[in-house]
C-alpha cells in the first residue's frame, strides 16, 4: 500500500498511545504532605482563637504571622477578612461568639 503522508496510521496511533501512557504516569496524585501540614495549622489557629475569644482583627494578625499574608480567609460574626480562593480547605470551630471559619489556599 502506498502512503502519501509522513506517518502511517499505525505510527500515529502508536504515538498517541505512548503520549497517553506518559500523561497518565506524570499525572499521578501527589503525596498529601502539604494538605497534612495545612490541616494541623488550621486546627491550631482555631483552637487558640476559640480558647482566647479573640476578635477577627487579632485573628488576622495571628494568621498573617503563622500562615503568611494572602494565604487565608476568616469569617466570624458576619465579618470576613481575606480573599476567596479557587481551591481552598475549610475548617471551622464553634466559639463563644459564634462559628469561626478559616479558609486556606489549597
Amino acid at each position, binding site marked *: 500500500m502506498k502512503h502519501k503522508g509522513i506517518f502511517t496510521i499505525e505510527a500515529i496511533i502508536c504515538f498517541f498511545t505512548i503520549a497517553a501512557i506518559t500523561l497518565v504516569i506524570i499525572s499521578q496524585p501527589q*503525596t498529601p504532605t502539604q494538605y497534612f501540614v495545612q490541616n*494541623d495549622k488550621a486546627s*491550631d489557629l482555631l*483552637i487558640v482563637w476559640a*480558647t482566647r475569644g479573640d476578635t477577627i482583627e487579632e485573628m488576622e494578625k*495571628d494568621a498573617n*504571622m503563622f500562615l503568611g499574608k494572602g494565604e487565608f480567609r476568616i469569617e466570624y460574626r458576619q465579618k470576613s477578612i481575606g480573599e476567596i480562593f479557587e481551591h481552598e480547605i475549610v475548617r471551622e470551630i464553634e466559639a463563644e461568639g459564634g462559628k469561626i471559619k478559616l479558609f486556606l489556599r489549597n
Partner: protein
Amino acid sequence: MARGFILSSDALIASLILLSTLLVVANFISILTLSEKAKYENFEKVAFASSLSSAIIKTRNETNPSTGAAYYNEEKRRVESNVVDEELLSKIVPQSFGRYGLFGIYERSQDSRREIFFQSAKECIFVERFVIIRGTIKRKAVLGVIVCEA
C-alpha cells in the same frame, strides 16, 4: 538493494526505534520511582514531625517533656490543648525516636525568633505549630519543632 534473509532495513529501523523507546521509558520509570521514594520518605518524616509536635502541645509528660509539654490547668483540672507550659518546654532535650529524632525547638513571633535548643544533625525538617505559651508572660507564639534523621 539486496534484502537480507532475516532483517529488512525497515525491520532494523523499527527494532532500533523500539529499543530506544524502551530505553527512554525504562529511564523515565527509574527517575519517577526515585522521585516517588524521596517523596514518600519526606512524607514519613513530616508525618512523624507532625505527630511529635502534636504530642508536645496536646499532652503532658512531666518525666519526659519531649513527648508532652502541655499546660495543666488547675482550675479546670485538665491539660489544655495548644497551651504549652514554658517550664516543661525549657526542660526538653534532644531525643532519638528510632529512625528520626527531636533535634531542636524554637519560638517565633512577628518580629523575633528564640531557639529553645538546637543540636545539628543531617536531613532536618521543621513543622510549626500555633500555641499559647504559659510562663512568666502568657503569649501567643509559633513553636517550631525540628526533626532530623537520628
